């Protein structure tokens, strides 16, 4: 025990010591939040390699990656939000909302598609801001606030589309100004070793990499973990809790806008009833990837692995020649398994 003489409290220096580095790398790897999902992903990959011969082709992998990427970009936003201790049930319809808004604004106001997209981004971010603002202002759980906004957005999507275009889908935008350049950004493909890969796969990896860097290497990331782990403590040490959480809701809205742009430029026209139920896929991907429902724990890489598991299962069942109706059963079973496995991993981590 230290004595009075040792206690030199006035002397504060930031110390650099090259001996202090992360220790026990292997053990640390084993208890990472996404470890369970990683092992699960390898298992499922091997499983489909065995039971589904078409799954072994490179083109199939590209298809799997594409299916994973559109879920994965959203799962990235939803995972970061969940780490921040909140929930967004409106994320699924927010995607459709963004692409409907971009399409209809550009078409009916005779704008360049980029201008329509920018207006849609403003609208999407406004919805995200309102979600966050209401959650923070009313202190009502985000589950209820975003459940409300989920239904309101779903209603707006259907009603406004019918009001404006008189149909359940928007007009094709493929002959409008800015279509080609926007398509190149949001919905093009490129070829690697003879395999055509969708650009969303690249965006998915970029989103995941940036989110990972922000979460672990920046001040904001530290704050996100803190507001999710214990908002009162975070506030007490000077973290701007309200701003961080509202920012997270807006980040989810940004991801929704991005995926919305992809859908618009990939299919030219948008069905107004799309997106309902997808919010659960995003949450499932995040939870399979190790995010804790109560906040303060998880990684963006985990969510990406979760989305990859989703994509593999989604396509693998088709390649295996099974009835695709089984997909949801598998998804549910995997979620259950993942939750139990992650829980076991986490308890091990705490006991260490």
């Amino acid at each position, binding site marked *: 025990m230290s004595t009075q003489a040792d206690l030199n409290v006035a002397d504060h220096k930031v110390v650099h010591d090259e001996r202090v580095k992360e220790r026990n790398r292997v053990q640390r790897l084993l208890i990472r939040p996404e470890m369970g999902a990683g092992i699960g992903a390898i298992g499922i990959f091997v499983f489909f390699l065995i039971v589904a011969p078409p799954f072994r082709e490179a083109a199939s992998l590209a298809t799997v990656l594409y299916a994973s990427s559109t879920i994965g970009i959203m799962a990235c936003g939803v995972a970061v939000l969940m780490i921040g201790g909140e929930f967004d049930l409106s994320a699924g319809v927010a995607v459709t909302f963004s692409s409907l808004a971009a399409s209809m604004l550009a078409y009916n106001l005779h704008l360049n598609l980029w201008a329509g997209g920018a207006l849609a981004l403003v609208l999407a971010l406004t919805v995200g801001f309102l979600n966050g603002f209401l959650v923070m202002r009313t202190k009502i759980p985000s589950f209820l606030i975003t459940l409300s906004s989920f239904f309101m957005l779903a209603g707006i999507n259907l009603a406004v589309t019918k009001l404006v275009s008189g149909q359940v889908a928007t007009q094709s935008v493929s002959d409008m100004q800015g279509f080609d350049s926007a398509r190149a950004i949001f919905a093009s493909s490129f070829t690697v070793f003879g395999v055509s890969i969708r650009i969303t796969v690249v965006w998915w990896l970029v989103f995941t990499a940036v989110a990972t860097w922000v979460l672990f290497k920046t001040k904001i990331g530290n704050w996100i973990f*803190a507001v999710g782990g*214990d908002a009162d403590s975070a506030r007490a040490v000077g973290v701007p809790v309200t701003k961080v959480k509202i920012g997270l809701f807006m980040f989810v809205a940004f991801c929704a806008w991005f995926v919305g742009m992809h859908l618009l430029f990939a299919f030219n026209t948008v069905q107004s009833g799309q997106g309902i139920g997808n919010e659960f896929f995003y949450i499932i991907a995040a939870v399979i990837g190790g995010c804790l429902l109560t906040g303060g724990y998880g990684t963006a890489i985990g969510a990406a692995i979760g989305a990859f598991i989703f994509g593999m299962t989604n396509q693998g069942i088709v390649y295996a020649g099974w009835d695709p109706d089984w997909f949801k059963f598998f998804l549910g079973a995997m979620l259950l398994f993942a939750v139990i496995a992650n829980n076991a991993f986490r308890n091990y981590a705490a006991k260490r």
Partner: protein
Amino acid sequence: MTTTVESPANEAPSGGKVPLVELKNVGKTYGNITALKDICLRVHAGEVTGILGDNGAGKSTLIKIISGLHQQTDGELLVDGEPMTFGSPADALAKGIATVYQNLAVVPLMPVWRNFFLGQEIRKKSFPFSLDANAMRATTLTELAKMGIELPDVDAPIGSLSGGQRQCVAIARAVFFGARVLILDEPTAALGVKQSGVVLKYITAAKEAGFGVVFITHNPHHAHMVGDHFVLLNRGRQKLDCAYDDITLEHLTQQMAGGDELEALSHELGRK
């Protein structure tokens, strides 16, 4: 018997210097409930002010006002002689008032070093200004070592530490960042004898290093060991305000236990 509120007693016990923090007739009401009334308090550099009180005496409310979590409804809060209103704990921190809360304000799932630097992270000097994790790890280790805490792994979640260790991390954090005034909310309440000793030694060291320390406790023994000045709260009122030389441990203990009320009670119970 007690130097009460009416007289702005003990004017400038440290030789006419401006107190770091001063409360003048501060009161706080929550709706129609009066939590605090007419509190006068001075915190000087190099002094420990012990705030004593039973449960519900208003100790926590008082801290929340000084640390910026709540605003007073009456009276004035002065920092360096200038009236202030803190909108948030960040404002108080910016003025050098750091608080160690009873719940320690730590995030259990986060590593020790991330908790230590939460809200005041060190960033690298060059683009992209990411966190300087190794500097923060090393600093955490060094600062904790000064308190006699040797942690094997600052990457362990802080929730896995013992209560005493967590307390020390929280205090070390406040000291590291709290430039001038350190508010400790019942730091020894959940600790054993030995670890309480560490904390009390640390409080004295902080005082000698020139910090103004506000030490909230309901343990008169601990308060008397380190305090230079005592304020006793009872039901939101200031009952006692005196310097170390003016009061004995017995008197303090008796006042703390209810003072006259206790005497009356013992008469009433009449154990003859």
